[in-house]
């Protein structure tokens, strides 16, 4: 398996404050990787740095392309879909318009239409509500819409920032099941940032643990899940 995303010596800044201190990790093509860490460790910042939404230095390579000087929209056009915290839903537009927007950089109209149908298969609740204003959906439905919108890009890599945030446990299970399916069937590489470490580790192949802007541990999801420190700090037993 080849490396899809390679991050070296990533440092990121909010104004004068440095949030990442030389982060290094890589994503294998087709893998599902999770980034674990406490609040404020730099998980969201890492995702934002990949999409050049904050000031950062270091090297990020995606399929051999350096991302450093590209704008957010050009990075997205390379096939990196980012589902941000708060989901990035266009709340005043309809569900279907949100899905259309996910594919706004694509030109293949027929394939877009069939992809929308595919999303309705993945997430039947969206089909029932396709003309509804996205802002009026429930939290879980909005998260599904956000994932569906990201998939409309036909991404090579999907970045998910705390998809379980604010959702009922059963809905989270459903959502992660679908994410696993997307990862296996559509061959989308996924990097997911999660507070719900247990669930993320069940599903992921690989895991990194991040503390105050540095990677402090990495390994397969099983290794990390069985690590005593991780168990105590993140899994709570």
């Amino acid at each position, binding site marked *: 398996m080849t490396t899809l995303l390679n991050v070296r010596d990533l440092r990121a800044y909010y104004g004068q404050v440095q949030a990442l201190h030389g982060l290094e990790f890589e994503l294998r093509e087709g893998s599902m990787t999770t980034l674990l860490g406490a609040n404020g460790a730099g998980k969201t910042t890492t995702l934002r740095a990949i*999409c050049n939404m904050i000031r950062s230095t270091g090297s990020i390579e995606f399929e051999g392309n350096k991302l450093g000087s590209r*704008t957010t929209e050009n990075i997205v056009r390379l096939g990196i879909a980012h589902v*941000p915290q708060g989901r990035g839903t*266009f*709340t005043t537009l309809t569900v279907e318009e949100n899905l259309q*927007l996910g594919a706004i950089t694509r030109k293949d109209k027929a394939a877009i239409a069939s992809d929308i149908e595919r999303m309705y298969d993945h997430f039947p609740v969206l089909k029932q509500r396709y003309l509804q204003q996205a802002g009026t959906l429930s939290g879980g439905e909005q998260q599904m819409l956000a994932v569906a919108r990201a998939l409309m890009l036909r991404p090579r890599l999907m970045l998910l920032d705390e998809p379980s945030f604010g959702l009922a446990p059963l809905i989270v299970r459903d959502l992660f099941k679908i994410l696993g399916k997307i990862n296996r069937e559509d061959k989308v590489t996924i990097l997911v940032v999660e507070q719900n470490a247990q669930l993320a580790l069940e599903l992921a192949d690989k895991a990194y643990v991040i503390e105050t802007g540095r990677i402090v541990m990495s390994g397969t999801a099983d290794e990390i899940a069985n690590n005593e420190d991780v168990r105590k700090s993140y899994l709570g037993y």
Partner: protein
Amino acid sequence: MELFTNQVLAGIATGAIYACMALAVVMIYQAIDHLNFAQGEMAMFSTFVAWQLMQWGLPYWVAFVLTLIFSFIGGIVIERLLFKPLAKAPVLTHVAGFIALFAIINSVAGLLWDFTIKQFPSPFGSSPFLGSQLISTHQAGMIFVTLILLVLLFAFFRYTRVGLAMRAAASMPESARLVGINTGWMIALGWGMAAAIGSIAGMLIAPVVFLEPNMMGGVLIYGFAAAVVGGLSSPLGAVVGGFLVGIFENLVGTYIPGVGNELKLPIALALIITVLVVKPNGLFGRAIVKRV
């Protein structure tokens, strides 16, 4: 009764112009969250361009289309040169920018074409419309052109991908970038379209108010009033607001003693303040509701 009908119809006709100006104002407001004080001067300059093209012998509709193209490109150029660098600047910087633009365009127009009043032709003539004394063919033309413009704009925003991308960029710029939309160009496009819409308003009102560098001052204030009445976030509201303000202006001028022409402008301002106090989001504006 005939006086009343007459005044209402004439109000709808000038209201059409206010509607166009309000639309232009709302387009830029949606894109950058600021009121473009120079919208009227941009429209005035475009109208002079149309006049100049006709002086050179071009027929009206050719000059009309060329002016639209000129204004569209001009709007984009203004955004790229002046307002793109200001994108993250505070409100007051923007206000200064708009005032500078206002003064520059006004003086350049005066320099190029001087300040004497000029006649501007109407493609619709000024005979009675359908033999009725109530409304002239030019007034009917103003209403007609505005309605066509509305339908085209509605179709553009509702049914085209660029229209959808523009709506997305205006409502949530960060999310728009995350689906790959170049929001900077969407803003520039908004400026281009606003300038073109404004130029239509200028060319339609010029036969009524006559062409000179200060012709749009009053019109723009009514345009602002219309935009505020309709709610600054709603293009449809801007248009309805335009027609309402036009009718209101005429009826007040006719029926309230002592108002006449001199006090019409303060009435527009009073209307703006009243709406802002009583219903700050306007008739069609959305109150921003956030889940917390």
